[in-house]
Structures are given as structure tokens and as C-alpha cells.
């Protein structure tokens, strides 16, 4: 199938007083139309920055983001504004991503007004009603303000707003992390239904591997701004090659009695992404690291069909 989004050599550096912060460092991947790409990693690995750079909400330092034959990374001004009709975002925190002074209906109508989609107020109101039905918000909440809603309903507002312009691609930045499990399941089901009905393509950013397993088709594992493993979701859970992915999977606490996996202990914590040392970024915490790892940066390579790993010793470790 054809890729809707193709990312090539994408980099985003931030200049800080302590030096260059490598938030996203030379990342390339593609997402097929109608599929979900999961991006997993711990805080500080650059996954949220990646989502923002993809939409050019943050200008990339270098690299290309191709969307339907156009480089979004190079788009500016009016053209970028037009592109954003097809590329939307759902944010992590439904408490701070909604304007407290706008009612639910105003929030959902705003993108439609900005892009002047409808000429009459009646059509606009009809579309807002329709969107509220789609995401399961009761009509009585039409004039309610965000502070009157719980987290799950607020996230539904965020989803309705992202859907308003019938986008083709949505970046979902930890959309269920702030929600309770029972509500989280409701939102995940809703997002899956919407994807089926509207043939949406998702980039789904999360730190929760069981959510990725459930919703994604393919997955990227990120560590300090770089992709360390990339494959189909089923492959990742069957066979991990990168030592970081192995540790990440072993750290999950399973909700069952007496079935805890042997945890692979990681030394220390995630290093600073400012002026990273040469060599593999995971080397200081890796139990298999040898001298070569601290000198030469491993490249992403195909170890099994469709399964890419950035570790020179992937086969030996497995």
C-alpha cells in the first residue's frame, strides 16, 4: 500500500545554554494510509517533539516530511495553514489543551470557522451537533465549559475538534494517558471506530506498551531521539532484538498473579540528550555493551523481514 506520510532524515535540535539538545535525531519512517503507527519510549526520548515536528508545529532543523506528495517540513504560511486541514492533533492533557473560556460547542466549531467551511450558521451548528454525536457527547453539553467536564469527556471534545475538518492524518500525543482505565478503554474503542469509518491514519504516541499492542499496526521504539527498533506490532511482542526494547517489555507489570516476567535490570537512568556522546546512546545502560558501542553509532538495519534494529549485536543478543 502507498504511504500517506513519509519522513526522511528528520532532525530537531533545540539550542540550550548547555549546548545542543538532540530531541529528534535523524529519524526516517513511513505510515501507510489507514494504518496506525505507534511511537513508544520513555519521557525525554523525543516522541512528543517528533509528533509536533511532523505537523510543522515546531520547525524541523533538517529533514523532510512528505504528505501526499508535498514536503510539510518546507511548507510555510498560507500553504502550511491549508495543509493543517488534513493533518490534525489530539493532545495529551485534556485539562490544559482546551480553552477554559470557550464552551464545548465553540471549541468544536472553531476550526470550522477558521477555515470558513460553512457559509451559514445553521450548517455550522448542524456539523457541531453531528460531531458531538460522533464522539458520544450528549447534546445537553452544548453550552457547557471545560471545567464542568471530567477528563474522558474533555478528551472527547479534543477528538471532536481534531475531526471537525475531516483530516486524513491525526497525530495522537498520549491521548489516553491522563485517563482512568475504564474511561481509557472507552476512548480507545472510539478512536478505533473513527479510524475504520473515516479511513484515518494515526501516529499514536504513548509510553504504554499494552495500549500500543492494542491499537497500532506498526511500532517505533525511541531512545534519546533515535529509533532503536521498528517493526510490525506483533513482531515486537514475539521477538525483540534491541536490548532497550527487551528491558522495556520486561519492566511491564502484568495484571495477573504469579506470572511476573524476569525483569532485565537497567543500570541508571536515561542520559541527557544535550550534546550526546558518540556511539550508541543506549550503551551506558546496556548490559551487553562493548568498546565498539561507545565509539561507533549503530545504524538501523533489517535483521528480519520488516524488522529494523539499531544495534550491531542484535542477532547475538537474541
Amino acid at each position, binding site marked *: 500500500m502507498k504511504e500517506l506520510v513519509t519522513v526522511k532524515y528528520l532532525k530537531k535540535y533545540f539550542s540550550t545554554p548547555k549546548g545542543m539538545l538532540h530531541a529528534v535525531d535523524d529519524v526516517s519512517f513511513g505510515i501507510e494510509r489507514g494504518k496506525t503507527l505507534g511511537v513508544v519510549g520513555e519521557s525525554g526520548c523525543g516522541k512528543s517533539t517528533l509528533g509536533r515536528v511532523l505537523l510543522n508545529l515546531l520547525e524541523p532543523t533538517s529533514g523532510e516530511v512528505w504528505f501526499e506528495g508535498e514536503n510539510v517540513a518546507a511548507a510555510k504560511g498560507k500553504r502550511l495553514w491549508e495543509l493543517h486541514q488534513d493533518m490534525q492533533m489530539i493532545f495529551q492533557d485534556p485539562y490544559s489543551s482546551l480553552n477554559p473560556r470557550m464552551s464545548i460547542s465553540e471549541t468544536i466549531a472553531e476550526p470550522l470557522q477558521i477555515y470558513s467551511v460553512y457559509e451559514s450558521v445553521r450548517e455550522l451548528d448542524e456539523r457541531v451537533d453531528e460531531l458531538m454525536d460522533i464522539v458520544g457527547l450528549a447534546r445537553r453539553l452544548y453550552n457547557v465549559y471545560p471545567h464542568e467536564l471530567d477528563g474522558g469527556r474533555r478528551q472527547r471534545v479534543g477528538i471532536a475538534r481534531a475531526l471537525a475538518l475531516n483530516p486524513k492524518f491525526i497525530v495522537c500525543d498520549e491521548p489516553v494517558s491522563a485517563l482512568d*482505565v475504564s474511561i481509557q478503554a472507552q476512548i480507545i474503542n472510539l478512536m478505533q471506530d473513527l479510524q475504520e469509518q473515516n479511513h484515518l491514519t494515526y501516529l499514536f504516541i504513548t509510553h504504554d506498551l*499494552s495500549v500500543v499492542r492494542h491499537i497500532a499496526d506498526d511500532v517505533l521504539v525511541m531512545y534519546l531521539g533515535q529509533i532503536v527498533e521498528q517493526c510490525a506490532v506483533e513482531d515486537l511482542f514475539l521477538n525483540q532484538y534491541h536490548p532497550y526494547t527487551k528491558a522495556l517489555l520486561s519492566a511491564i507489570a502484568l495484571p495477573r498473579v504469579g506470572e*511476573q516476567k524476569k525483569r532485565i535490570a537497567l543500570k541508571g537512568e536515561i542520559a541527557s540528550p544535550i550534546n550526546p556522546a558518540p556511539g550508541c546512546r543506549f550503551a551506558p545502560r546496556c548490559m551487553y555493551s562493548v568498546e565498539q558501542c561507545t565509539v561507533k553509532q549503530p545504524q538501523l538495519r533489517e535483521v528480519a523481514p520488516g524488522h529494523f534494529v539499531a544495534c550491531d549485536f542484535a542477532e547475538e543478543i537474541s
Partner: protein
Amino acid sequence: MNNATPLLHVKNLHVRYTTDEGTVHAVNGVDLVMKKGETLGLVGETGAGKTTTALSILRLIPDPPGEITSGEILFDGHDLVPYSAMKMRKVRGNHISMIFQDPMTALNPVLTIGDQISEVIRLHDRLSRSEAYGKATRMLELVGIPADRMGEYPHQFSGGMKQRVVIAIALVCNPLLLIADEPTTALDVTIQAQVLELMQNLRTELGTSMMLITHDLGVVAKICDTVAIMYAGEIVEYGTLQEVYNNTRHPYTKGLFGSIPKIDVRERRLKPIPGLMPDPTHLPQGCSFHPRCPFCTDQCRHKKPENVLLYGDHFAKCYYAEDGLQ
């Protein structure tokens, strides 16, 4: 101490908050027994009353607006509810201590780590400044932080490290009971696993009993002996880890398990619990879970179910707990 008396016995605890919007019934008749050396997992969603229950045990409910309206909190056989503020201060930190959810805000930014740990010791033990500092250093090493970091400030530590410091502060006076309120929620999975392992090791080493408040059923399965599931201010199911996980009887507990995406099998759809948590100012009549319950009958709508005792200590607050819900 007599081994037969439970370490903590909460009897019929009711806590309410009086606000402009009405009376919030946060805790409604909680009964809880913890034996010495046991780890209890208190599980529930936001607003279930987990934290309020914990704060009541420490008598830290802000009053007003909060108030313990009835019930007893027997700690080691003594009821803490009538204790004076002075007497309570001796209990906190010394016999019962608490770890809060967010390690970033639990520490004082203008005091060094060393000073913050020794402060607790000096408050409860008659030790000289240098003796207290020495004891604090040993405690810091016990939680896996090198002693030369005693003079550093909280901002120089990462999230996982700060949580270790908070654990050190909580355990330095050898409390009998440690209440940990979502101690690993703010941490990344690999760090979470490190901290949980540390807490488990310290528990065996120091013999502290622990009440772990969490919404994560995975964390509970990893370190708890018994589990209490809270919903709308009540404990709806209680039992050993084995019983509650493998022989689940309350429909809410079942719903919680159904909501979690499974890591090893891919299902087409999750089975969420329909609807939302009830508004604690207007709790529904009868069983508080009935509006969301797929098995609800007329009886559930009108009369609150009592605890149904099942195997061993395992109980569930549901009329149909014995039959097993299918």
C-alpha cells in the same frame, strides 16, 4: 504487641467534605483490616476515595471542609480518631508514614537531601545532629543513592531518584505502616520497576507493612498480598491477591480487568465499563455501581448490598457475588 490484633483495623469509616455545591460523600463505610507485615493494594479510579481513606488514617483530612463523621481507626489496638493534634504528630512519621504521588513536589527545594532526611530523625528520636546525619546517610545508601549526594538539592536529582529520597524519609524512623499513594505513577516504566523492586526489598528487610494506593492492577499483582477494590467511597471487593484476581466476583472489578488492554493477546475491542463514576454529591440509591452494572436488578436499585463473605477473607459487596456473574 499481641500478634493476633491486626496492625490496622478501620471500622465503618465515613468521611465527607462540605462544599458550596453540596456535601461530598468521599468515604462511605470503609472496613479494612491489615495484618502485620502485610502489603495491601488499595485500587480504584480517580475520585473513588482512596486518598481520602489514607489521609484519614493519618488524620490529615483538611478540617474544614473535610470531616470524619463516624467510624474507628484502630492502629495497633488504639483508636486514632479521638487523638489530639499533639499526640497525632508523634504517630506520623514515627509509626505511620506516607509517600505521596508526586516526588517533584514532596521535597523542599531549598533544603539539602541530607537535611531533609535528618530532620525527620531529629523530630522523633533524641539523637545529636551528627548522629542523625549518620543515620540519614545510611538510609540514603539503603535506597541506592551514594552517600556523597547528601549535600545536594532536590533539583539535582531525577524523578526516580527523588522518589527514592522520599522513600528514605518515610522509612528512616522504622514505621510500622507505610502508606504509599501512587508512588510510581509519575515515573517511567523502567524506573517504576526499579522503585517497586526497592520498596519490596526494603519491606522484607525492615518488616514494614505497606498500604499501596494505585490504579494500576499490574503493580498490585507484582507486590501486594491482599487487594481492596474501592468504588464511590466503598470497598466493593476485598481478598487475597489470588482470590480477587483469579476468582473475581464484583462486576466493577470484572469491568476493571476487562478495560485493560492485554499485552499478550490482541483483542479486537476492549470492554469498557459503560458510563461514568457517580457524582459524590449525589450518590445513586441502592448499590452505587448499579447504573453502570450489566447485571443490575430491581433489588440493586433500591437497597444497598451488604458484604457477601466468600472463600476465606474474600468478600464482595454484591447480591450476586456467591453465584458468580457470567
